[in-house]
């Protein structure tokens, strides 16, 4: 309990610091949304439009940085994230609400799957050293060393295309309206196959490796020898003694990666034209859309923190040593 309270205090501090940074970084960026918009419309928007845009975005009024900072916190507490510039005047919250589910569904599920698959393979590879699984390691290492966007583009070129079951972009069939019906879900799943597989390929190796190494380390612990000495079935020794303990250090890694689901998806979403939050961030950066950037950072920061808190709790539940009586 004490441990938890300590952690929460720590998280509050980190959240404050991270959000403050989130506030200041976009404001340090030279250039502003209007010029970015004009750049974007090279020649398609006349220079007269500049002034009207400043008025439109409310950038014609000068507010002190401190005043903005106070406002920012007020907004954060009210859950009001302001209006996006890129999609003016859509509230940032709406944009996030629209893209977050996609990101979470695609990357969340894949990260989880990658962790599960990687960990299971790692358990086997660590337990049966010298078996064929060891041959898998260099291959996965190579695959994970490939820059993600490259892998994705290559996959699109080789696998997607006319007549293929893999669509090359988007989150669902263009004509469909998101709803909970079979057609839509089927289409969404179909569209997520290729991104999911490529994420899996490029991220599974890390899990295999760290789990394997932990297994190797744990396998020479005395309690494993004791478990063998007790004549327990090998499966039980492997799962409930070795893997169970080897998993512990990976839990925090997993939590961290869950936190990075939101932030780490930029490339996936760019490459696969996936309608998620990472692509929004990319757009926001390009358009100097600070409200959107801040909103996304807020989501990322909070999700990392929540993931970490969950990891702490999971650790608490999984490792009795951190549990204290009373």
């Amino acid at each position: 309990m004490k441990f938890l309270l300590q952690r929460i205090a720590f998280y509050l501090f980190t959240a404050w610091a991270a959000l403050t940074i989130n506030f200041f970084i976009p404001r340090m960026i030279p250039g502003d949304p209007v010029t970015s918009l004009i750049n974007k419309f090279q020649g398609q928007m006349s220079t007269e439009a500049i002034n009207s845009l400043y008025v439109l975005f409310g950038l014609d009024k000068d507010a002190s940085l401190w005043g903005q900072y106070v406002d920012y916190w007020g907004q954060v507490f009210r859950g009001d994230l302001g209006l996006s510039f890129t999609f003016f005047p859509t509230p940032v919250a709406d944009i996030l609400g629209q893209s977050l589910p996609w990101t979470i569904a695609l990357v969340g599920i894949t990260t989880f799957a990658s962790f599960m698959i990687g960990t299971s393979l790692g358990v086997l590879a660590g337990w049966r050293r010298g078996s064929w699984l060891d041959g898998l390691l260099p291959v996965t290492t190579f695959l994970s060393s490939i820059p993600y966007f490259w892998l994705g583009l290559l996959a699109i070129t080789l696998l997607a295309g006319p007549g293929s079951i893999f669509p090359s972009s988007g989150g669902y069939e263009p004509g469909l309206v998101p709803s909970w019906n079979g057609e839509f879900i089927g289409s969404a799943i179909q569209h997520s196959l290729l991104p999911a597989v490529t994420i899996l390929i490029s991220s599974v190796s890390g899990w295999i490796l760290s789990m394997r190494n932990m297994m190797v380390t744990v396998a020479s612990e005395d309690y494993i020898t004791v478990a063998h000495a007790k004549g327990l079935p090998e499966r039980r020794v492997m799962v409930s003694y070795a893997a169970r303990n080897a998993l512990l250090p990976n839990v925090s890694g997993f939590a961290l990666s869950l936190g990075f689901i939101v932030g780490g998806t930029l490339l996936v979403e760019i490459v696969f034209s996936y309608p998620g939050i990472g692509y929004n961030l990319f757009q926001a950066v390009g358009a100097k859309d600070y409200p959107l950037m801040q909103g996304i950072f807020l989501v990322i920061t909070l999700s990392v923190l929540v993931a970490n808190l969950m990891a702490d709790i999971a650790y608490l539940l999984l490792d009795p040593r951190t549990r204290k009586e009373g």
Partner: protein
Amino acid sequence: MSAPASTITAVTPEGPEVAAAPAKRRRLRFVANPKAATGLIVLAFFCVIAVIGPWIAPYDPSARSSDLIQPPSGKHWFGTTHLGQDIFSQVLVGTRGVMFVGLLAGIVATALSVLIGVSAGFLGGAADESLSALSNVFLVIPALPLIIIVASTIPSAGDLMVALVIGLTSWAWGARVLRAQTLSLRRRDYVEAARATGETTWRIITAEIMPNLTAIIASGFVGTVIFAVMSEITLAFIGISTISEWNWGTILFWAQSQQALAQGAWWWFVPAGLAIAILGTALSLINFGIDEFVSPRLRSSGHTRMRTKDGHTVRMRVGFTPVLGSKEQPATPVVRRTKEDAA
């Protein structure tokens, strides 16, 4: 997704092994590790290219020619771009930027992580609390988006700037690992003993603690280099960084913006990507080598199949020690009785 893939976690929980391993003479053994050796050779190759690349490149990488989008040929080994530029030359010349950014960012991040991690671990108390909080904040902020934003803010961000930005934003993980390790080293007897001998704090940190952190520092360095190379290439690829010189990311940026794959110009896309993958693999191999070097358990895990003198192979298994030469009839007949039988 970048951070946890590191295998540093596997290094940290090691207790005495870390202390016992890095004795100077055993350091050479590191090179004897086949993984590390392969990695080092490949890395050395890229380093050489980074140095001599611009001289051995057959063409000026920016020079246009009339061979537009030509597939690989004797004249242009890796084909040409939409402007008739020689891709082989671009890859050669681009190596320098990649290596420079990777190494510099690695050095900056490693220096920072050592500075912050070791001081936090050694000083303890309020200094530790605040430094850990700092690194945690940096851990929580996702690196790639941060780098993208920061890189896009800096006017005329060249290689140097990109390297610095990557270095300044990616030290936190290493600092955390180093702090934990320093914390455990600080309580080691030999550190106390050095203090009891009268060594100054400064000297204890640099001469007693740091040498024992070399493996972790090295692996952190290699990890950051991988991350930096990937980030730099990503930045160039999505057109954020403003590198005026060639690097592999720039090549891919051009390939992508000219939709090389849709045009069927695979040669524009493949060499740079492969080069990155090979460099990344080499660096990962070095890291495996370091891991195995640091943790003897991992080291011995390499060869689980062994050959006896008479040519049999024996597979080592935890919990079931192999018995040599007992394949013949056992000395006494085995009639196994279980408890149930007896009962």
